């Protein structure tokens, strides 16, 4: 592998990081909104959310990426490869985030909500000050786990023509007739990226355990 090959691999890493982080940044709030809609049993919307979550969770990332990249233009909406990739990852992760948030909301202790009610807190304040901060705390390990799954699904966006780590590695392999070194380098890059999240997860889990003891 030449210097130029390393450079294109690192460029691919930049694309993977950018798309994954953007997908997470959009998917998290979207998942939270969906979870709250489902949790509050909003008429009409709640069953739609359940259907959305069920279908999206079953949809492979590749198929979703193809659908978004090829079908939106046929409906008159032009979409570039990078936004299409971000939309794919955000939509697919939002369904899983929704289920994680919903689990956290359902497990939230009833007595705290009742105590807040007894203090006369209005619904929005109750949610913002009592439920949300504690719920975010307990679901964090599951959310981080879902983030690592998103990173591993991210090569799916290569079908839109985006050159991410995987695609860059395959290209270099095809050019140099030596596919193994770029693939090993790609594996290391992915591992480092995933490792960051694993470290984050371990430290939150340690903190949770300490707090449970205290």
């Amino acid at each position, binding site marked *: 592998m030449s210097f130029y090959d390393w450079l294109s691999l690192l460029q691919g890493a930049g694309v993977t990081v950018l798309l994954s982080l953007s997908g997470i940044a959009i998917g998290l709030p979207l998942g939270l909104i969906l979870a709250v809609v489902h949790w509050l049993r909003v008429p009409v919307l709640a069953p739609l959310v359940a259907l959305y979550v069920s*279908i999206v969770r079953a949809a492979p*990332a590749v198929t979703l990426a193809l659908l978004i990249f090829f*079908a939106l233009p046929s409906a008159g909406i032009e979409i570039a490869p990078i936004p299409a990739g971000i939309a794919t990852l955000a939509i697919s992760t939002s369904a899983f985030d929704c289920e994680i948030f919903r689990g956290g909301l359902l497990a939230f202790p009833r007595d705290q909500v009742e105590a807040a009610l007894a203090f006369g807190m209005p619904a929005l304040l109750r949610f913002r000050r009592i439920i949300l901060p504690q719920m975010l705390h307990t679901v964090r390990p599951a959310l981080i786990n879902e983030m690592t799954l998103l990173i591993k699904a991210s090569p799916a966006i290569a079908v839109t023509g985006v050159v991410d780590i*995987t695609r860059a590695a395959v290209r270099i392999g095809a050019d140099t007739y030596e*596919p193994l070194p770029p693939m090993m380098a790609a594996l290391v890059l992915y591992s480092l990226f995933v490792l960051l999240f694993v470290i984050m997860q371990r430290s939150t889990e340690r903190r949770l355990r300490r707090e449970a003891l205290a």
Partner: protein
Amino acid sequence: MSRGWIVVWQHHNEMLHGLLNTMWLAALAAVASLILGALLAMVLMSRLRPVVRIATIFIDAMRCVPFLLLAYFVYYGLPSLGLTLDNWTAGLSSLIAYNTGYMAELLVAAWRSLPADTIEAAHAFGFHGFGVFRRIVLPPVLLNAAPMIGNQVIQIVKDSAFLTIIAVAELTHAAAGIQSTYYVPFAAFVAAVLLYWLLCLGVEQFVGVAEAAAGRRR
């Protein structure tokens, strides 16, 4: 838009063929990775330090590598080590290798939560080695891990869609083929997504029925 659905309906044979191939791939990969995963779990629970270390490295590697990269490695990378596989064999074996790691991991988690006295009682009744594993450990472990195994099978179905990139004729490949000939992207890919959805609902149903049946026998 309605033209798209008519075109997809006209080619429903190709779609169903793709669906059938996806089901075959997923079923074979699920069974094989479950068996290999159980063997790997045995290794992990043994006291053979060096072997445990190698198994742990394998599992960690599988957890870090994206499935598509592994499939590329098996299909494009292994030939330079002297092992050339066609796209079907490469796709299936990478599905199996990838999920063996995950299956082993979730079986070990279920195994660790098994009460130790059951195994001690088995020893007291004269069960040894593989007999303990097959008769005493495996049944409750499989039963406890059933929902997780179901989730993993759904993951296998979804991962198999990546194999379209190495031209394995599964469901997404069939949809992409129809779309590229007739330019009906919306209908073709929505149909594919809905078929994946039905397949995953089917897997969930199957796990539920199997769990209920096993629960009754207990």
